[in-house]
């Protein structure tokens, strides 16, 4: 039988191979190919055992994980408790959720080859949720010798126990990466569901390539030169429409959110009323429409945790979802005594999914009476500049836009924009004790109803305080050759379960 290879064009080139040091999606996707995780959420947002099952002590202080049988790394060594401990420890230094857990960790030890015991000093309700999350930095399990690398340096050996093996020789950073089926991988028996369940691999090889040009990628797919295209620009879908060999579809319904982040340190956004004015001035519909075009692929949504997530709630979001309320914005500006200080709006030019938002926002803000100084720069300059806390005149900034996958904002712990610890927080640095209090409450909450209630309060608070500007949800469809079937509808594109029939 002939080898089956799936050639996939991913949303960006893979350059960083260390899933712990970076939050880049492509690296996370790569990690899901070659690494496995202890526990993972299924499509109902419910954590399920993956490499390990767990038990929680009644006081909520001791978690015992038991590794299942048959787990081996690609180099043939069995996965042991020591590997798990080392991997979790390194992850805990980088991931914000992980840090919170390690803040209350008394000990984390492997009691034998198959058992890991995690002891806390006080209960941490969402512990399993945090280690099961699929984004941004899930705790992937690596051999202990790799996981012992400092958390500030990248690893140099890429061996996991996941369903695919990384082909080091064929790897060209930023261009292509090749995975081979790992024959010794033992999938779970349950059907695959998101990152949980049996990861049954039905192809021999998966090759990811990068195509810098969107149009070329589409043409290559219609010509059958590639099998799968992770992201299709919606406007370009008509090009594929006549081609029966190609299917364009939504992979999952969660998609992305696009957000604007004001800088709390400087005028005018140090003033809550001005932030509210910005919120009133902006219009989700027009921003999403210019980004996506077809309403099928975007959704006006005022829920900061995403509209289709368990915590999602649109409370208090009328100002956001009700279209541009220029009048209200003007009133608020008036009330705030806005003096015409120009807003430095950073506009990246080289990232297609972020090109539109600043342009649309600038127009809306100006209409509401803001002075807007939109400064174009490449994304790297945005990335550097957004870390500057200095005043605008000395290289600071007032507003920028970015995108997240919905699972990355879907609860108060993973959502970095809800961090209210001032300088220690995420860019924009709100000093917001109220929200910090609510997050602490959330951590110690043990049942879903309480969590939901706290989440709603956080939602209301954000709508009032405007920690960030939720600009709505959108979905980027994918395209595949019609002989590629049974792909799991998960936010992370995964290549197990998938089959490729002869064309």
């Amino acid at each position, binding site marked *: 039988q002939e080898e089956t290879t799936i050639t996939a064009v991913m949303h960006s080139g893979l350059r960083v191979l260390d899933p712990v040091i970076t939050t880049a999606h492509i690296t996370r996707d790569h990690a899901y190919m070659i690494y496995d995780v202890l526990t993972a959420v299924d499509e109902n947002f419910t954590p399920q055992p993956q490499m390990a099952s767990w038990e929680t002590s009644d006081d909520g202080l001791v978690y015992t994980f038991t590794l299942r049988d048959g787990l081996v790394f690609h180099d043939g060594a069995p996965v042991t408790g020591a590997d798990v401990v080392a991997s979790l420890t390194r992850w805990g230094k980088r991931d914000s959720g992980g840090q919170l857990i390690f803040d209350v960790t008394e000990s984390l030890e492997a009691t034998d080859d198959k058992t890991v015991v995690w002891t806390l000093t006080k209960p941490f309700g969402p512990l399993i949720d945090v280690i099961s999350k699929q984004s941004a930095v899930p705790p992937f399990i690596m051999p202990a010798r790799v996981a012992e690398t400092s958390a500030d340096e990248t690893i140099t050996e890429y061996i996991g126990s996941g369903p695919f093996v990384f082909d080091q020789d064929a790897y060209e950073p930023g261009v292509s990466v090749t995975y081979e089926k790992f024959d010794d991988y033992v999938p779970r028996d349950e059907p695959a569901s998101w990152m949980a369940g049996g990861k049954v691999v039905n192809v021999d090889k998966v090759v990811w390539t990068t195509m810098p040009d969107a149009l070329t990628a589409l043409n290559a797919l219609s010509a059958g030169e590639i099998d799968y295209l992770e992201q299709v620009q919606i406007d*370009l879908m008509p090009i594929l429409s006549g081609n029966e060999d190609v299917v364009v579809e939504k992979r999952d319904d969660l998609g992305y959110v696009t957000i604007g982040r004001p800088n709390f340190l400087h005028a005018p956004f140090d003033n809550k009323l001005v932030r509210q004015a910005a919120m009133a001035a902006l219009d989700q519909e027009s921003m999403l429409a*210019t980004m996506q075009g077809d309403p099928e692929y975007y959704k006006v949504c005022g829920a900061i945790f995403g509209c289709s997530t368990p915590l999602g709630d649109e409370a208090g979001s009328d100002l956001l979802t009700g279209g541009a309320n220029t009048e209200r914005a003007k009133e608020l500006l008036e009330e705030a005594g806005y003096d015409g200080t120009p807003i430095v709006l950073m506009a990246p030019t080289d990232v297609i999914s972020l090109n539109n938002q600043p342009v649309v926002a600038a127009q809306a803000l100006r209409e509401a009476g803001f002075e807007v100084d939109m400064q174009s720069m*490449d994304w790297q300059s945005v990335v550097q500049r957004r870390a500057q806390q200095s005043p605008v005149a000395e290289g600071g900034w007032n507003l920028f836009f970015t995108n997240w996958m919905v699972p990355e904002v879907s609860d108060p712990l993973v959502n970095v924009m809800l961090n209210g610890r001032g300088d220690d927080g995420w860019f924009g640095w709100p000093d917001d004790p109220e929200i910090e209090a609510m997050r602490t409450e959330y951590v110690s909450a043990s049942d879903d109803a309480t969590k939901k209630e706290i989440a709603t309060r956080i939602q209301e608070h954000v709508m009032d305080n405007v920690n960030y500007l939720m600009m709505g949800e959108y979905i980027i469809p994918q395209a595949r050759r019609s002989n590629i079937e049974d792909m799991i509808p998960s936010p992370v594109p995964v290549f197990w379960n998938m089959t490729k029939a002869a064309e």
Partner: protein
Amino acid sequence: MTQIPSSRHSAFQVVTGLFSVPKAMRIGVGPTIAAVILVAIVLAAVLAPYYVPYDPLEMNAMARLKPPSDDFLLGTDPYGRDIFSRVVTGGRVSLLIGVGAAVVSVAVGLLIGLVAGYFRLADSIIMRIMDSLMAIPAILLAIALVALNGPSVTSVIIAITVPEVPRVVRLVRSVVLTAREEPYVEAAIALGSSMPKVLLQHLMPNTFAPLIVQGTYICASAILIEAILSFLGAGVSTEIPTWGNIMAEGRSYFQIKPGLIFWPGLMLSLCILAINLLGDTARDILDPRMKKREV
């Protein structure tokens, strides 16, 4: 008897007239057409704000990618902006970049080139630096410079100018080196003319004809490089339409909305064609060697 034109002769002339286009070029039809086109494009661009039907920046999410119609002469782009308004307005900055880059590179290059051509001491140092600048790929240098200063019109002009300057310097220097062997330059020295005078009055005018050609070339290629920079995400800010960034923005729409590339591309091509043709003509007029040949 009705007057019969000397038919064979005139028919012959008509036919040759039709097919020997370059002869027409020689007597100036080509340059005339070129001049008319260029003036038209420049006027269209400069006066754009007074007659375009829409603000070229005004977005309308509800009118995205509309086909040409009475409302939108050439249709709309993915932001629902009027393509016609953008294309004609885009000429302003594109031409500014072209002319700006040409003028700055020629002026700076001329100055450095004269110094290098005349002062042997400065020559080798200057030429080493120029060699180095030439060796760095222009486009990479440009991307880096734009990243350094942000994608403003000025940075794009600077980014295009920096790699062009060494070419101008080389050109000027070589002209100066040849011209200083001319007997009339020696005569001027014998007449007691000072070095600056010889340099400026006798040598510099020799550089004008080749500089005009080089200048038109730079102007044309600057407009193109701006397009390429936009393509690579390092062009002029999207708030300022240029032919280059209209094309770059529209590039993935090539198959579904070719107008986004076609119209600015057409303007750009016409413009560059005209500039080149005029440059060559100006060279022919200025170059005394050409004159001698015709006599």
